[in-house]
């Protein structure tokens, strides 16, 4: 939903980033306001995932130029955990497995750390159990996932649901979902998308990083951006995604070249 009068939530200006000295992002500009859904599409290697990791604060990526403001404050000087506590959430393309740590313990630690940093009440294990079970219903997740080790032995779809469950618990103002649709079958895609739509309000924003139109049938974007070689080369409405689906990326990237 576009609310034109809202103050920007995220402002990215001239963002350049390198990994191991290799330039990946070469000047990105993007403004996201509360209530909006942005889709970032583009061919493999165009820098989509790097962009999402840079926003979330992955230490392996070095910002060479540009600025990023979140709620008007400099985001780039903050550590990954500070960004998370401030309300930035990254849904991972490949969530990490942590054997030996139960999902329940991890989720509660994450939730309470973020709540504490936001000056809100933490929950004891029993209270948290009620809360997390309620949220799991949204994603049609079996409560048995609470007792299993974090992501260990989860299928691709189960991992992605667990990511959106974390989003549901942490209630970010900006959720960046990196290839959340990859590895999902039709039913899982419907459930995960339904969860994201449920969590999306006029006060928060979502950036979807995806290859495919099919996710955008479920989560309808206000803007679609096409990335190529570390830049956003075209921006349009939701109809742009359909055009990309029909025509591929070549016509956009050639026109931009």
């Amino acid at each position, binding site marked *: 939903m576009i609310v034109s009068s809202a103050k920007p939530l995220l402002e990215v200006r001239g963002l350049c980033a390198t990994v191991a000295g290799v330039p990946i992002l070469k000047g990105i500009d993007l403004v996201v306001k509360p209530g909006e859904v942005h889709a970032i599409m583009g061919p493999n290697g165009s820098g989509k995932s790097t962009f999402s*990791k840079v926003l*979330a*604060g*992955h*230490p*392996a990526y070095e910002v060479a130029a540009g600025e990023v403001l979140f709620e008007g404050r400099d985001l780039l000087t903050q*550590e*990954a*955990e500070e*960004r*998370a*506590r401030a309300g930035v*959430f*990254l849904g*991972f393309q490949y*969530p*990490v497995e*942590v*054997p*030996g*740590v139960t999902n329940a313990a*991890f989720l509660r*630690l*994450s939730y309470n*750390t*973020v709540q504490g*940093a936001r000056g809100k009440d933490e929950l004891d294990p029993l209270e948290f159990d009620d809360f997390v079970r309620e949220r799991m219903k949204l994603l049609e997740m079996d409560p048995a996932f609470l007792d299993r*080790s974090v992501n260990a032995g989860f299928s691709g779809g189960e991992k992605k649901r667990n990511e959106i469950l*974390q989003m549901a618990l*942490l209630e970010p103002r900006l959720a960046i979902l990196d290839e959340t649709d990859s590895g999902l079958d039709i039913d899982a895609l419907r459930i995960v998308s339904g969860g994201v739509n449920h969590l999306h309000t006029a006060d928060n924003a979502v950036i979807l990083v995806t290859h495919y139109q099919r996710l955008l049938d479920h989560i309808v974007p206000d803007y679609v951006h096409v990335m190529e070689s570390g830049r956003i080369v075209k921006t349009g409405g939701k109809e742009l995604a359909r055009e990309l689906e029909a025509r591929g990326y070549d016509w956009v990237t050639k026109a931009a070249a």
Partner: protein
Amino acid sequence: MSVATDSDWLGDLLRSTLAAEQSAPESLKALRARALERANALRLPTVRDEEWRFTDLAPLYKGSYLRAASAIAFDAAVVDRIALAESSARLVFCDGHYIAGISNLSTLPANVTVTRSHEALGSLAAIDDDLFAALNTCNFSDAAVIDIARDADCPAPIHVMFVSHQADAASYPRVLIRAATGARVVVLEEHVSSSEGSALVNAVTEIDVAPGATVRHCKLQRQATTQFHFGLISARIGRDATLVSQSITLGARLSRANIHITQAGEGAHCQLDGLAVLGGRQHADTHSTMDHALPHGTSEQLHKCIVDGGARTVFNGKIKVSPRAQLTSAAQQSRNLLLSDRARVDTKPQLEIYADDVKCAHGATVGQLESDELFYLRSRGLSKDAARALLTYGFAAEVIERIAMPSVVKRLRDEVLTRIGKPA
């Protein structure tokens, strides 16, 4: 301060040996006399000995240790802190001496017998080429001898605690577990300190698993980091019997674990787990031998080390498959996690296979925490230290969670989570 010569240092250790004690049973007197003879004949190991290449005992030889002749009063809170909710009985030893007052045998199952001496002591622990085992054998006073009757099932753990209390003392914990045919038992052997003073703990554990029996033995070493620990575990597994052995090393400035397991019956099975979590200047060395002597035996060994600060671990895992031991299946994994640039791991598998129809696998890895994994947890709001601790625990969990005692699992989880990232 001058460094003691071999004979001085050993002389101190042997000055008050029990080998001359006349009141002991004849079998024990003979055993001690033979051990004393070996102790006098063997040289102190140095890094020039192949078995000690990576473990320099110079810090040990700098100190002087006298056998603790008796227990002296210590703060029993040490014992209360580590008491297990689920244990059936507990035996407490202070500096190698049995303390009846704070032990509890009243709840011991009827088919388990506990004594302080037994003629079978020394039947498994070889002393001929092992100075520390010989020193233990001529010096130990009270042994923890646990006999489990035929077909008895004792799932509640028997907790054997050894408290090191007196500074500059040498103590000689001694354990003998005898599981009769078809018996099942769980034993926790725990070594702790009630003070920070330097001390030498030299332990020997013998485990005899009769046909069809199952012994789960967990050795937990969490002494003060000013101390030394030498431990021998010598086990014999009979036909169709199972030994699950876990050695967890958290403490001591320098420790050495020798583990000798002999599969002495067909179809024996052994799961041998090791976990060392070290920091500061700690050094832990494990030398194990899995001896497959008869056919159809299986063994699985998982040895994990987490090394922080300037700490160092050594692992040498030998698997022997004798010509008769056809259809043996043996697997050994050495997995190591380095948490600092100064930490060091030396790991070496050693396979001696003389049978042709066997399956033997081994592997070793040394790695660090992955930055992607740390980033994942930090992106969920966890601090860098919390993320590091959680991932480190995740690495250790595979061993810890196989321990058949829930309160030990919980205690170790808390301990690993809190000590990572803090200077040892």
